[in-house]
């Protein structure tokens, strides 16, 4: 089942290229919530709502193309994003798993499908796209084991972790949390649509050029371990978003006027645009410097001091 928010943040069931308005099905109490709380409340009441929503699957609805999709979680109560967490296509059977680490991304950075990432004027070395699989929490989780973790998954969605590179640190507020730096959607695919989150595939294009193209089997700490870990730090609530990290082979610059799309098998495709008030220019394409740096890091090799980690601006 694919659940969306659309137009004035009303809930919808996506079936093929049509969408069925679920406002009446979820009921007045949920529709009276702030837009940001509607999907979390639907998720929290899902055991009760699911059969009612299922019963509407056969309806005609209306064409998806005729509605404005919204981010399914316009302002999650929290968003925890993985750092790295992919093997960069390099299998090292003898290397111990690097424990998951996660940072907090501002919920205010979320934008709707087809929205525009607006680059900030700060002098980043580069602004990059990190297309990622994101988990939506279904049931409160606190100190759950990896074995229990998957019972707390509601579903999955696509996110682009917009990232400003080259400041003092890597995952602080300015690096990750500028307004508009998190395209999310196009909807949530419930967990049954993706029975094994380690067997799906993430792709991201910029202006039609395929950049990121990686299977989630390359993930170092799988979804169950990510949920377990986060739940040992703080309670996870329905509608919280946990992104799984990124494989760095395929990252590249975001720049003015570009149009991008992320697609994850089992979920769907989310489009976004980019604007830059300063019209800065970088080489178009995959950033081979960060790709090589991430491979070296994975192998435990030291990058020579002073070596540039990212492609620099050309204008």
């Amino acid at each position: 089942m694919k659940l969306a928010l659309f137009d004035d943040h009303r809930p919808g069931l996506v079936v093929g290229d049509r969408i069925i308005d679920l406002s009446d099905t979820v009921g007045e109490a949920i529709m009276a919530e702030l837009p940001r709380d509607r999907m979390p409340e639907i998720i929290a009441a899902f055991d009760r709502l699911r059969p009612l929503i299922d019963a509407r699957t056969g309806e005609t609805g209306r064409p998806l193309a005729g509605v404005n999709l919204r981010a399914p979680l316009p302002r999650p109560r929290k968003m925890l994003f993985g750092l790295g967490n992919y093997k960069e296509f390099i299998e090292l059977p003898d290397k111990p798993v690097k424990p998951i680490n996660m940072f907090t991304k501002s919920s205010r950075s979320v934008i709707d499908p087809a929205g525009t990432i607006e680059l900030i004027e700060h002098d980043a070395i580069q602004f990059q796209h990190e297309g990622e699989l994101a988990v939506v929490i279904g049931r409160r989780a606190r100190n759950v084991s990896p074995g229990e973790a998957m019972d707390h998954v509601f579903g999955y969605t696509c996110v682009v972790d917009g990232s400003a590179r080259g400041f003092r640190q890597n995952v602080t507020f300015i690096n990750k949390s500028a307004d508009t730096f998190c395209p999310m959607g196009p909807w949530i695919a419930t967990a049954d649509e993706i029975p094994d989150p380690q067997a799906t595939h993430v792709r991201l294009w910029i202006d039609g050029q395929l950049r990121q193209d990686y299977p989630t089997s390359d993930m170092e700490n799988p979804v169950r371990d990510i949920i377990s870990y986060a739940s040992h730090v703080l309670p996870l609530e329905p509608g919280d978003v946990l992104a799984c990290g990124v494989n760095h082979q395929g990252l590249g610059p975001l720049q003015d006027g570009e149009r991008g799309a992320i697609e994850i098998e089992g979920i769907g495709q989310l489009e976004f645009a980019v604007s830059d008030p300063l019209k800065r220019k970088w080489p178009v394409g995959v950033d081979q410097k960060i790709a090589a740096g991430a491979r070296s890091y994975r192998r435990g090799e030291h990058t020579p001091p002073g070596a540039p980690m990212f492609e620099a601006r050309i204008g």
Partner: protein
Amino acid sequence: MKLARFGDDRIGIVTGDGIRDVTDLLPEAITRLRPRYRMNAVIADFTVLKQRFASAEGPVLPLEGLKLLPPLTHPELTLCTFANYRQGGAHERAMPVFWLKPADTITGPGATVSLPDMDLGAVHHEAELAVVIGKGGSHIPAEQALEHVFGYTATIDLNARGILDDQGIAVNAHEGFGALGPWLVTADEVGDPQALRVRLWQGETLRQDYSAADMEYTVAELIAFVSTITALEPGDVIACGTDHRGIGPVQHGEDYRIEIDRIGSFSISVTDPRRRRWPSVIDPKAETALSAARAGGLFIAAAAFTPGIEEKVK
């Protein structure tokens, strides 16, 4: 005016040694909101509500015996400024660095914070002045930034050291790691935020004692900078960073009290399921670690701090 949350999610005005409950004066548009949004809504509508609160009558409940709650339960945005005090010596002023703290970390006066059941070097207290935004905006000029301030509160910001490269949720996002209180004090009562003195005691021992005049970036400059990255909203919180020269470990069975001039004072206590022990003193390596971080080291490295003395729970 001092605005507190107390009891069963009530909102009140602090007067002398008591609180006057003004919850029933709130408009229905605010009371029908989920509790986590109410104080933010009060802040957003404060120019209207202020008069109503000021002319409120009704009994003043003695502070003693009231349970104070964190004045903001669910800030939309809580930012902690990293290393924002000059601490003497010469260094180049670098761009300010902010860490986001999820709202799940927020706790209030009198809270008991349980240390994470994880391997770590130590958990440090950082007493900080926190500014609460009243009027939202983006690209706010520093010269106008104080007009966007609703008021101030005190925070005991806890951070774990020596864990996962000193960044991420294991460092700053555990439940209870963001104690706010004892209430919000409106900007007009505080005056110049840079003139405030911040102190923190462990038990009866003074550990942190510094002046906000020593901030690298002033409150106004912090607001201006943050507003170039996100559009600020009423109720957003920016903790202004700490002077590291007095920070030290928090541990099982100890109490910590913060006090800021013209704001007030509150305490938290700490429990630890692992009953770890650290020397109960200011961390002697804190200043060195900060210098290393300023010199371009990635983070305050694990090895820079005094390690814990592990004691197994019997």
